[in-house]
């Protein structure tokens, strides 16, 4: 399986995403420069987090004009799996590959913290390895993650099962307290109608090794591997879960807090 990780000027989670694909999952991965006009023979495309083009004007607003985005649109239109993480999600919104927009966090501050999201839909290429309703512990790190769309758009998303992730309490309750940014309906991630394009604000690539606090994000990457049978099975993936570090038994408790 080959991962293409798009690098915009100002992307800053490109290396982290590449690290997960290459080192944690042992898959093929390539960084694709935003001026390139080919995705190579990618099986999956990831738009990583960061501040593409400085997020000047508006988050993701300039990135959608990068040459590679035409290829990403074609890839998506042909049914290829595309994942936008954080700034990548914002780019997908600006590019019209996903509906809605991001407002400033309601705290008006950048927020970086671990939190919990519930997997609402497992029929996307990035959630099919999750259990329905599974709660994933992942970090967020954003200033503009307050998801907004017109009421009819939101109700259509809900009706079609396009809300893929929702911010929840550790126990799984959809509460205002669990909502870190003011997103409508606690929306943390959505997919398009064809379900092959997914965007989410939390960072699964930061939650793929217990040594750094959580390995729950792996299920998102495992899903995409499962989609192509024979490449690697979920069981094999979980064996390499801890990544490069062998953790002393108890230290996980501290780090995993």
């Amino acid at each position, binding site marked *: 399986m080959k991962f293409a990780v798009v690098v915009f*000027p100002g992307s800053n989670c490109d290396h982290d995403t590449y690290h997960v694909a290459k080192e944690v999952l042992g898959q093929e991965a390539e960084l694709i420069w935003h001026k390139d006009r080919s995705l190579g023979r990618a099986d999956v495309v990831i738009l990583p987090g960061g501040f593409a083009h400085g997020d000047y004007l508006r988050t993701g607003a300039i990135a959608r004009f990068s040459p590679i985005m035409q290829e990403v649109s074609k890839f998506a239109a042909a049914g290829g799996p595309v994942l936008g993480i954080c700034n990548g999600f914002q780019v997908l919104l600006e590019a019209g590959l996903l509906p809605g927009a991001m407002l400033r966090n309601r705290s008006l501050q950048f927020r970086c913290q671990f939190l919990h999201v519930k997997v609402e839909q497992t029929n996307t290429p990035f959630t099919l390895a999750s259990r329905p309703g599974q709660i994933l512990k992942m970090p967020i*790190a954003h200033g503009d993650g307050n998801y907004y769309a017109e009421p009819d758009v939101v109700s259509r998303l809900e009706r079609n099962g396009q809300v893929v992730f929702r911010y929840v309490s550790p126990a799984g309750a959809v509460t205002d307290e669990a909502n870190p940014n003011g997103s409508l309906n606690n929306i943390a991630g959505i997919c398009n109608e064809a379900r092959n394009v997914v965007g989410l604000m939390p960072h699964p690539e930061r939650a793929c090794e217990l040594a750094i606090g959580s390995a729950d994000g792996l299920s998102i990457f495992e899903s995409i591997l499962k989609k192509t049978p024979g490449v690697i099975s979920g069981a094999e993936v979980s064996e390499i879960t801890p990544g490069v570090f062998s953790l*002393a038994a108890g230290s996980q408790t501290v780090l995993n807090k």
Partner: protein
Amino acid sequence: MTPDPITDSVLERHGVTREEYGRIVTMLGREPNLTELGIFSVMWSEHCSYKSSRVHLKTLPTTGPRVLQGPGENAGAVDIGDGLAAVFKIESHNHPSFIEPYQGAATGVGGIIRDIFTMGARPIALLNSLRFGPLDDPLVRRTMSGVVSGIAGYGNSIGIPTVGGEIAFDRSYTGNPLVNVFCLGIAKADEIIKGTASGVGNAVYYVGAKTGRDGIHGATMASAEFDDTLNEKRPAVQVGDPFMEKLLLEACLEVMKTDTLVGIQDMGAAGLTCSTCEMGSRGGAGVEIDVSKVPQRETGMTPYEIMLSESQERMLLVVKKGREAEVEQIFDKWDLHAVHIGEVTSDGRLRVKNHGQVVADIPNRSLTDEAPMYRRPMSRPAYLESAQHLDLAEFGPLPSPRDVFRRMLASPGIASKRWVYRQYDHMVRTNTLLLPGMGAAVVRVKGTQHALAMSVDCNGRFVYLDPYLGAQLAVAEASRNVACAGALPIGATNCLNFGNPEKPEIMWQFGRAVEGMGAACRALDIPITGGNVSLYNETDGRGVLPTPVIGVVGLVEDAGRVVGRAFRSEGDVVVLLGETRNELGGSEFLHVVYEQIRGVPPQLDLSREAALQRVLVEGTGSGVIRSAHDCAEGGVAVALAECCFDAGLGVDVDLAAVSDASAEYRETASLFSESASRVVVSVAPGHASTLLSMAAAAGVPAKQIGHVGGKRIAIAVDGRPTLNELVSDAERIWATAIESWFEQRRAIA
């Protein structure tokens, strides 16, 4: 060149004395023109020349088997094995951060990041050490929120995690906050790049943001006190563009992978002036540039303005002859345009032309190595006599231990800094092994089994009461913090924040603090590989608490063995390493309860401190120690509470009473004394005796004081129950104290 008339008022505006002017004339063999005077003034400013501090700094230990680069370059570097080097430095941006908190702090972050990647290192961690006035002052809250969002705005965008730091509050910082930023990067040990210009005929390139009129005389501003003309100094603060810096960072690292560069330096303080003459001076060469080729943001800029501008995000490169096209191509890819502005020459001079006409011609060394150096007069401050006197009985009634404990937890110096660090992206790059607020900052080094622990510390109250001992205590605390995570301290960087050095009492504080810092670093075997001095931290004639911040870097052999401060499991045994004495001098207790900075700081036995740190490194490395937390502000009572928070576990301990306090103060001193060289450690029940014998063998006092468990923080002194609080109650006070200052403000606004 027609010389401009240099009058006394021109000299005064440039911060150059008559005497210094005489030296300039001698060195040039003629009168300088205005451009040349401007160049001398910034290079001879305190900020660039270290003219008051250099004689003292020379006494610091800077060498060791691991040191790859000591002071004198853009940053220091130490060997961390696997062919890798840790490149790090701390720098201040105090003055700009008071004038314009957001941009001042943001450009401080930008500046230190450039220092690190200039060495060929990829920056992987930021820390900061901040000082503000008391939070009940709305101006202070405005400054603090501006500084925090400035740090966040820059660091988050560029994608370097802010993984830790420290914040303290004292009235002396109200009009002069301190913003010290630390950055660490990783480079291949044999591929470190220097800021040097050599090889006659090699091309000098300018790359990055265009030059504007911002920041002209920033270095001179940072070398003067503040007074009520403050608002007029606003144009001297620069504006940062983290996106530009991100492009520069990636493009420079890409260029450095080729072997096309002779040297590279960022344009920080004193901009183009400093980078050209310093690179020339280091390489024993001359540099000739034409300012008309420098990309300019505004029209009609004079050579004077171009040479002195401190516009951000600019770099100067010396490229090997014949390799220019390769370099230009890489910068083009990143939409940056490297501009050829001059050449390396053989005559050791900085020659500045404008459209081919020479506008300045100065020997490089006269601007750098031969800059003035002063041995300023020092005298022991008069305040010490009365300040060192401490008699608790003079302060009126002693509150109950419970009352003191709760007030301490709510004190911003001790309370959780979550309101601050949740605004920083502290996880990007996926190396953060210990989250902020869990002890030292710890990041793994990908591709190796190692991790690096970092801590920045200074207790300004201790330094105020005894600069020599206070600076030693800062070194001891920072290295102890690193050792608590399981790391062996291997190098340090310092940021010395003091008042006006022309005052003999301030200079005495400075001199004694540097002596103390040197002695502690020698005893603990920690070389100082570079740093920064910030003087003139005064507003309206009042200086800040002397604040020599030290940043210590430690190496963890096995990243999987890193421990934090939080307790781990019910039933674990709690051991107190070190000894508690009746030492409330300069304590948080006095500060919180009586608003006093008095007495003498806790005593420090450096050989015992070294032994303690060895036990910590050995104990964590062998997997015996499961959590470790230094006892600092607030003493053992606050340390125990902090070990319970995060873990959500309680603790039940019995402390031995300090023997040297009168009956009335015995409990208070036992709980809140800030004796040095103490650490609260937890171990699995079966490992308690192993740890105790490890400590005994090292000569470190150690006592099993109780167990982890339950829901309460229960502390007895000599068997007498003294404190008994629900962990959740105590944690609520501690967790919300700082936040409530800012949320409250929002509610009103």
